[in-house]
């Protein structure tokens, strides 16, 4: 008697091999057989007409805080993700002394945009060390977690306030090595560091004060365990990024460790950047180094409101001058019919329709709910105004707090992105799940891979796309028990409809502690998600199962 048999689906096992009709049998949280299975089970999951694949692995998230009250990392799990990697970009919640909490909260708020209530009401700080944090989240996980430990917090633990002031001395470096060992022993799957991030006061995060000797010494410890080094390079300048690739390659070769970096995104303004990045990566791989560029699937949306000056208007000098003024004068100017007439005229004879008509009202702010998701063009027609005037008046009616979205503004040309994602050395990830809560939705990138790059453009086969999100990711990260539908592996399984898997529209949700807002996307086409053999999500509902583990 098996615990579960997933019956009659197209088994796409993660290896990249063609799918085949078959069943998957599960016992004690593990896959015990794949193929034509006879025999009985406590539970049958019917998968006819569906794809049966290993659960997806999301290698770049910031769910560190959310996991303390939401063991499913919602909505990640409903998108078919069965394992998340938090602790990226040099930041984790352990090791962290009680006295340093406030400082690290500031850094997290800078990247996650989480409301303060998330840190004061939603959970109890029961830990200081990494093992303690692990115990705190492990109690109620329904998703698996492969946590990184952040270089910035290790540095803070060892150096206190000096962590954000200077290079470390030999004693401090050796203490950091010991602390990293302790974290790896307690279940960390690697170390994250950043050359870019800042805290809430605009100061570089602690990891940025490290000299190469320090990173080298920490990488030596990673080498003892064969574990991952994740970095955020100076992605805004391609030449520096390439220098970082070389540096990562040296660390990878010297210490025999995998390394990964992100973001890597395409822009028509710098059309050669990804090609140059990938060319360098190919050269380093051919030397034996492992330097995985991590690329997101989703296009970049930009958003703005008239509440703050935005570069969105940088081609409209009058708008720039007016929006640059202090709030009171800005509102006065926007109420002056003569000024407004000139502003509207600046946007062209069509009243800004071409320039602004496709902007979408985002919601979650001062904008009325009924306008959320509608285009400015549409709203302007209803109001009987030209587009630019509608933008100004709508903003004025709501204290300027109306956020507008310019969708697909970067990394958006499917015919360019598809082949990049399909490249064997490009690691798909960089979702940033759990971060940027008030800026944009970081969920649904896996669904978008299938809807846009498998179904629409055909840049990847279904099997390739599944392999990228599962076995290849597990191999890159050394997650031995995950990523394949194969006897002996953990029973992390997603059952989905190849014809409809995708991501829903972005919408505001008020489900953070203290009714905090974030942008989310629902999943489409996902039927059932099993985590370690238990149904964690089915028929649009999360179950009570808490089978998630900290996995290594």
């Amino acid at each position: 008697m098996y615990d579960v048999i997933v019956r009659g689906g197209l088994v796409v096992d993660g290896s990249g091999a063609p799918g085949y009709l078959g069943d998957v049998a599960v016992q004690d949280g593990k896959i015990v057989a794949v193929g034509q299975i006879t025999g009985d089970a406590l539970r049958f999951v019917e998968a006819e007409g569906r794809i049966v694949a290993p659960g997806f692995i999301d290698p770049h998230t910031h769910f560190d805080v959310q996991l303390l009250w939401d063991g499913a990392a919602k909505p990640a799990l409903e998108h078919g993700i069965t394992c998340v990697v938090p602790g990226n970009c040099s930041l984790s919640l352990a090791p962290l002394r009680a006295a340093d909490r406030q400082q690290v909260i500031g850094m997290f708020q800078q990247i996650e945009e989480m409301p303060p209530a998330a840190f004061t009401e939603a959970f109890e700080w029961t830990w200081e060390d990494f093992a303690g944090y692990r115990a705190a989240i492990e109690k109620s996980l329904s998703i698996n977690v492969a946590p990184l430990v952040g270089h910035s917090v290790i540095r803070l633990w060892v150096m206190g306030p000096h962590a954000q002031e200077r290079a470390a001395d030999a004693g401090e470096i050796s203490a950091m090595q010991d602390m990293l060992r302790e974290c790896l022993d307690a279940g960390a799957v690697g170390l994250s560091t950043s050359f870019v991030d800042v805290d809430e006061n605009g100061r570089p995060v602690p990891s940025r004060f490290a000299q190469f000797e320090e990173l080298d010494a920490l990488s030596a410890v990673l080498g003892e365990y064969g574990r991952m080094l994740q970095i955020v390079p100076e992605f805004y300048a391609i030449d520096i990024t390439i220098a970082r690739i070389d540096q990562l390659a040296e660390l990878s070769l010297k210490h025999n460790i995998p390394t990964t970096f992100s973001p890597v995104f395409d822009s028509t303004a710098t059309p050669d950047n990804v090609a140059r990045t990938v060319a360098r990566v190919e050269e380093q791989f051919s030397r034996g180094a492992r330097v995985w560029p991590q690329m997101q699937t989703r296009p970049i949306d930009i958003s703005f409101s008239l509440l703050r000056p935005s570069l969105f208007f940088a081609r409209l000098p009058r708008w720039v001058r007016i929006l640059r003024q202090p709030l009171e004068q800005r509102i006065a100017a926007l109420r002056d019919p003569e000024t407004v007439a000139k502003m509207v005229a600046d946007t062209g004879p069509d009243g800004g329709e071409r320039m602004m008509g496709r902007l979408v009202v985002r919601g979650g702010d001062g904008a009325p709910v009924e306008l959320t998701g509608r285009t400015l063009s549409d709203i302007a027609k209803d109001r009987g105004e030209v587009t630019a005037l509608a933008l100004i008046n709508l903003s004025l009616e709501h204290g300027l707090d109306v956020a507008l979205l310019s969708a697909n503004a970067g990394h958006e040309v499917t015919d360019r992105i598809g082949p990049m994602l399909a490249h064997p050395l490009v690691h798909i990830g960089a979702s940033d799940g759990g971060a940027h809560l008030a800026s944009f939705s970081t969920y649904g990138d896996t669904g978008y891979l299938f809807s846009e790059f498998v179904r629409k453009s055909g840049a990847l086969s279904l099997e390739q796309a599944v392999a990228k999100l599962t076995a290849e990711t597990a191999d890159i990260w050394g997650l031995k028990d995950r990523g394949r539908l194969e006897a002996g592996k953990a029973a992390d399984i997603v059952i989905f409809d190849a014809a409809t898997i995708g991501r829903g529209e972005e919408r505001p949700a008020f489900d953070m502690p203290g009714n905090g807002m974030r942008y989310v996307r629902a999943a489409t086409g996902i039927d059932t998600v099993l985590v370690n053999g238990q149904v964690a999500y089915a028929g649009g509902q999360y179950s009570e199962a808490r089978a998630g583990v900290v996995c290594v």
Partner: protein
Amino acid sequence: MSAEAIIIGAQIVAGHDGSAELLVNLRHPNGAESPVVLDEATGLKLMKTCGAAHVDELTGQSWRRIVEGL
């Protein structure tokens, strides 16, 4: 040839964190050209420092103006 890097063009691009960013192209004294992307706040400061109300007005400015805005 100028003795220091100058801005030879700028355009608005989408930043990875969901804000508009400013892509500035620099020409170095040796003739090499390279792009650098400034985040929204730095980009806006650069425009202000240069007294520019349109991105095209950044052309010809010294790279030092970027640093002034940091």
